[in-house]
């Protein structure tokens, strides 16, 4: 046993053996954008000196005439970048601290030809000449379909002070969107968008082999698996390998504490600030929940590990972000258990390793596909693993469910925008509402309509068919149509592609005893005037229709249902009578209103549209039901509460008088 350990040690130290080990025997993805990088972190200057060799394969059928790269870090170069313009010039403390970030490509060689002087900045999304987040390199010759090229680059990246998603603070570093990254050649053109304030990213899959040199006291976390460590003097070089991923992020901080666990053959590593130690078991549990849920639902997590980075105090700008096999968390010291924000961040961000990581949609153009589906997943997980009505907040009588929390962000602005559009072209909180929440509610509503089992089949098929590929909206809809055996385009057209509102309302209910007939009636060839006196009625034997065969009084009841919004969707209508009888109808919702009339020996109690609350997109649940009798109890309770709160407020006002 000891001898074999020695031999293994010698083998591992031998330079030829120091090659990275293959993770997947069979590639999971096309691997057409593979990077080998050697980077050095200058902790004083907060800079990364990098050398990278990109091996890129033209997967298209086109002759490609140029290359395009993202230089995302230039978004932080000045306040005129598209990123900051979209943030209305709000640069936080970057300007004050002279802590801008940028990246310079100093050398660019394609298959041995130096093309550095051909680099030019382009602005495919706007005409902002000050934005330097995309470059193109035109060629004299073309890259043929299936041809592989090598692009060698030297670059210097200056990290900004922590602002959003990346940066440094003191000796903490978070490198994300930090290296020159090739765009995606798709649909006959380069898809290489600028860095936007409300957009995330898009890239091809590949293998990343990254060697990071930095001071040896730094604790490092990165995408992929650590292959080996070389220590030399005050520095060390860590080599990571990640396969079948489309991005690479890493972090370092000497004060990170490390917690490790293995669950379902996945190594979970948590790098955390000592002040957040109490959140570590919660992070761990949240990762395990995702691993459990996803593996049963759509598919296993194939990678050997996941790293959770809990940023130190003052670095919340990098919190709550997803990268392949690395996510960032968010918490604070002594956070109560009833506030499930650490869980929600982890469950969401780790969920992105399926929706974005493996199913690699274009987050610039169709972000709902990952954010919306991932939020849908997040709500499902919270409903499954926690008490639905208090899943997000359950503290001192304040209870908020994850679904309620999300729905609240939508119902006030239902008509403001639609979901299938570029992620940067929303205003206000529109991106959050229409990329995350509305699509999530749309999927939950669909699940309620078609049933969980069918919905699960849809999601599983979507994941399995499109993992390690770049699906579009129509690809998802096609799978729904395929599984359902009929077109559901009508559903997605209305909800995903239009700014329509869904709102059904019970407009009115009324019930009254059948009144005696009045006026002239022709009866057995004779014109009579009704109502008769009791005597004459008996004599004539006229049935006024006031009672049924069992001598019970009859009541005429009427229910009017309105469609207030534009969305047309079949909806259940429940009508309940005072004797407990009930009637259920399905209204197709095509007209603006529908009326139901009843003649029964009982009074109407209430009517409810969508009584099971299947249509979670409905913007107003309060008008989904209407009772004949006033509902005083809840009002009395609320008025009692509000009266007391107002008295308390007045007491405070008066106290200082």
């Amino acid at each position, binding site marked *: 046993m000891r001898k074999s350990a020695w031999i293994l040690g010698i083998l591992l130290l031998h330079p030829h053996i120091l090659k990275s080990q293959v993770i997947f025997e069979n590639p999971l993805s096309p691997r057409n954008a593979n990077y080998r990088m050697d980077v050095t972190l200058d902790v004083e200057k907060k800079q990364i000196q990098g050398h990278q060799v990109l091996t890129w394969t033209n997967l298209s059928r086109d002759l490609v005439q140029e290359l395009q790269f993202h230089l995302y870090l230039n978004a932080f170069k000045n306040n005129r970048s598209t990123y900051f313009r979209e943030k209305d010039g709000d640069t936080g403390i970057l300007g004050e601290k002279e802590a801008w970030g940028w990246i310079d490509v100093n050398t660019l060689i394609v298959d041995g030809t130096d093309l550095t002087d051909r680099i030019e900045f382009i602005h495919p999304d706007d005409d902002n000449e000050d934005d330097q987040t995309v470059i193109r390199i035109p060629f004299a010759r073309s890259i043929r379909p299936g041809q592989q090229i090598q692009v060698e680059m030297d670059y210097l990246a200056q990290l900004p002070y922590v602002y959003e998603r990346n940066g440094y603070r003191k000796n903490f570093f978070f490198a994300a969107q930090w290296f020159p990254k090739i765009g995606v050649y798709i649909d006959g053109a380069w898809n290489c968008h600028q860095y936007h304030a409300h957009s995330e990213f898009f890239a091809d899959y590949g293998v990343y082999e990254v060697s990071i040199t930095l001071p040896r006291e730094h604790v490092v976390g990165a995408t992929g698996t650590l292959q080996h460590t070389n220590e030399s003097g005050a520095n060390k070089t860590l080599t990571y390998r990640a396969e079948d991923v489309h991005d690479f992020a890493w972090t370092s901080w000497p004060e990170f504490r490390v917690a490790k666990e293995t669950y379902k053959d996945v190594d979970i590593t948590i790098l955390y600030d000592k002040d957040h130690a109490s959140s570590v078991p919660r992070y761990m549990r949240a990762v395990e929940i995702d691993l459990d849920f996803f593996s049963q639902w759509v598919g296993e997590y194939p990678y050997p590990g996941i790293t959770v980075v809990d940023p130190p105090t003052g670095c919340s700008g990098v919190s709550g972000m997803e990268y392949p096999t690395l996510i960032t968390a968010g918490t604070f010291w002594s956070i109560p258990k009833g506030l499930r924000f650490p869980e929600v961040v982890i469950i969401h961000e780790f969920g992105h390793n399926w929706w974005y990581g493996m199913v690699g949609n274009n987050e610039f153009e169709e972000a709902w596909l990952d954010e919306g589906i991932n939020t849908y997943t997040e709500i499902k997980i919270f409903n499954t693993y926690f008490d639905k009505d208090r899943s997000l907040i359950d503290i001192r009588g304040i209870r908020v469910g994850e679904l309620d929390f999300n729905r609240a962000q939508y119902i006030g602005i239902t008509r403001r925008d639609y979901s299938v559009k570029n992620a940067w072209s929303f205003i206000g909180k529109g991106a959050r509402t229409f990329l995350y929440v509305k699509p999530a509610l749309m999927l939950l509503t669909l699940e309620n309509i078609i049933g969980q089992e069918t919905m699960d089949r849809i999601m599983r098929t979507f994941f399995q068919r499109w993992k390690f590929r770049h699906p579009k909206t129509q690809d998802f809809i096609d799978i729904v149509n395929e599984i359902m055996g009929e077109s559901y385009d009508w559903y997605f057209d209305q909800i995903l592609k239009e700014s329509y509102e869904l709102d059904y309302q019970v407009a009115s209910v009324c019930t009254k005893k059948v009144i005696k007939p009045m006026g002239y009636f022709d009866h057995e060839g004779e014109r009579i005037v009704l109502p008769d006196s009791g005597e004459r009625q008996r004599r004539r034997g006229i049935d006024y229709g006031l009672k049924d065969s069992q001598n019970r009084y009859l009541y005429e009841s009427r229910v009017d249902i309105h469609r207030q919004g534009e969305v047309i969707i079949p909806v259940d209508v429940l009508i309940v009578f005072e004797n407990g009888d009930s009637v259920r109808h399905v209204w197709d919702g095509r007209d603006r209103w529908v009326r139901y009339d009843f003649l029964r020996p009982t009074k109407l109690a209430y009517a409810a549209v969508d009584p099971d609350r299947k249509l979670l997109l409905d913007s107003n649940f*309060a008008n989904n039901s209407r009772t004949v009798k006033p509902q005083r109890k809840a009002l009395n309770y609320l008025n009692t509460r509000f009266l007391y709160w107002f008295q308390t407020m007045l007491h405070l*006002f008066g106290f200082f008088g």
Partner: protein
Amino acid sequence: MSVFDIFLNGIKKTIDNLRMWFILFGVQLVFAIVLLRPLGDQLDKMLGHSLMGQDVLRGIGMQVFLEFIIDYGQSASPEVKLIWIIGLIYLVTSIFFNGGILGVFVQDDKEFSAHRFFGNAGRYFGRFLRLFLFSILFIIAALLIHSGLGALFNSIAGDSEPLRILFLLIKTGIFLFLLFFINMIFDYAKIGTVFRDRKRMGKTALQSWTFVFQNLGRTLKVYYLVALLGLLCFVIYSLVGKLFGPSTSLGILLLLIWQQMYAFCRIGVRLNFFASQTILYKELTEPYLKAWFKEDAT
């Protein structure tokens, strides 16, 4: 008299003036009902015939609250304005009543009469209003100290989150202490005004600072003893209040009664501040007053 005796006498004095207590409670209730009216109408519109109200009764009313806030919040600016306007009117009304309250407590040998109460309220209103404006200056100073402490504490705490949170609590504690201290000082300024019929309010305010600092131990003890009574009332209210759920009409009725009882007691506590502090003021200043009157007579 010991501080505890002063406190007990304060309670007795408050109970002796039950009519005044009811007047103040009634006024507060009327103001609150005025505020409730538009909100109640909106609630009635939303839930008056809706089954959604049952969620509230089942204790899962967050969806209702969120929907109400979102739907109603968009047109709630008149209500928010109303809260401010009514709040300010109530503040001015409180300033007005304080003269009446102190008039009753200072002349405790006479039986309560509404005529005397309102007469004193009107008599001291202008003076108390000026005192209130002076007190705002000190509240602003407290706010400045609060923000200054924030900067100092942040620099000491550095990146330590536990320290930051601890300092936040300390900072808030200091701020509340200052607010209560200012409140106490100006209570004595009002008492002094009524006792000595002072008219120069700036000078009175400064004299009340001197008075409090000269008798710091006893003034603080009396103040916090009464505050403790307020806290005790709140704890009892909170614990018992949990028993009255919204599931039955009786539960709602009991809740209403319980809340109103607490609101009534809370006003009693406020009266007890004045009553106890008046007794203390009298005890501490009476020998000087007597000596002063004697000197004056000779």
